[in-house]
């Protein structure tokens, strides 16, 4: 077994530099790599490009990097929950590329899989199609979309082991598995780092081969964005 364990988030983030491109898992605030984001804020690296479905909220998630103006460019599908984001975008401080959510997921998946590009119907006839190659298949137009190229992927899983095997929980899975192995270095933070051999190989979502560094995260806040409940009758 190849041991992927690093002792803490500082070691996990070794090698991050100004101007790099990062992938960050999560949907809204669910399943975001909280520890890695906190460390990126701490390191105060600048001019980074972030590939992430959302941009956090003003004071949590990627919003923390936005507050310190560390992000040069965001590649996302939906950014509606962040006022600071909107301000930076409209003022031109922040470069933003909005792309369809399925295209975002597949561009991660393609990078993970060694597929340089693929065709998708999403976005044909819209702004998203501008400047892109297109082609007809089965009587329908499709756009050529390219795999992402990123330096680090920061993902968050529920359980993991020293081999880098990962299991996700609920809808916190989202983009995390697609980003594993989609960047030069994949850093996985887990809520629970368990001894090798205790995870059932049948139940593993992401095999350790896609992960370079793994550590047990601390103090997960797991903030809920839209608390919606029903009352007992």
């Amino acid at each position, binding site marked *: 077994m190849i041991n992927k364990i690093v002792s803490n988030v500082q070691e996990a983030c070794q090698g991050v530099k100004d101007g790099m491109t990062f992938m960050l898992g999560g949907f809204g605030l669910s399943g975001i790599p909280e520890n890695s984001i906190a460390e990126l804020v701490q390191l105060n690296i600048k001019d980074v490009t972030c590939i992430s479905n959302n941009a956090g909220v003003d004071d949590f998630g990627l919003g923390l990097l936005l507050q310190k103006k560390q992000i040069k460019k965001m590649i996302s599908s939906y950014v509606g929950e962040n006022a600071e984001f909107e301000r930076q975008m409209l003022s031109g401080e922040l470069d933003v590329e909005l792309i*369809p*959510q399925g295209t975002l997921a597949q561009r991660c998946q393609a990078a993970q899989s060694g597929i340089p590009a693929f065709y*998708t119907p*999403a976005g044909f006839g*819209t*702004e998203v199609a501008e400047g892109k190659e297109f082609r007809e298949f089965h009587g329908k137009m499709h756009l050529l979309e390219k795999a992402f190229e990123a330096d680090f992927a920061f993902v968050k899983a529920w359980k993991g082991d020293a081999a880098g095997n990962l299991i*996700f929980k609920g*809808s916190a899975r989202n983009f995390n598995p697609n980003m594993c192995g989609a960047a030069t270095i994949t850093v996985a933070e887990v809520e629970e780092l368990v001894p090798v051999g205790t995870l059932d190989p049948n139940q593993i979502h992401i095999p350790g081969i896609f992960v370079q560094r793994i550590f047990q995260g601390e103090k997960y806040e797991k903030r809920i964005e839209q608390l*919606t*409940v029903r009352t007992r009758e």
Partner: protein
Amino acid sequence: MALSKQQIAQRIAKEVKDGYYVNLGIGIPTLVANFVQKDLEVDFQSENGVLGMGPFPFEGEEDPDLINAGKQTITTLPGASFFDSAMSFSMIRGQHVDLTILGAMEVSQNGDIANWKIPGKMVKGMGGAMDLVASAENIIVAMMHTNRAGESKLLSKCSLPLTGVKCVKKIVSNLAVLEIVDGSFKLLERAPGVSIEEIKNATEGNLIIEGDIPEMKF
């Protein structure tokens, strides 16, 4: 009387058939789940990675690791499954989802839809809407027939940036049920007490009216 948002959802729920996998957008579409007949077997898909979505949790039972695409806390029903985002959109692009219901700012008579951007004003992003409209065979749009200024949102041509082209099949508005046929809005039903004249006045795009137009039934 024009329909309320709840009534729009209630009318759309009648389009949901037994055995359907359904994706609901944010807003009025989310309400549709409340009105689907209880004896139908229907599974709701949420594009952030849930199939078999249930109602909101009871207070105190919410789980930050279990949300829908609107980031609301939810529950799952027996038989539910979780999956990653790429697989979620395999369900969508691969046309495994039977019905997509979403909101719109504008729809054109050839079935184009605009619902993600108002240049210079609202730039939130398209989320999964472009993938959904580009692939789904069966798309129903839930919308208000006119904007707050009373201007039609059913147009000959959309003025806002498009989400997809020639994709909308059916529209349920607060005034009418319409189908897109041969580059026109074909009037199928009108809201109870709403006259054909009212619908004509509220529709800027080409409107086809053939024979008697029945009132909607709930």
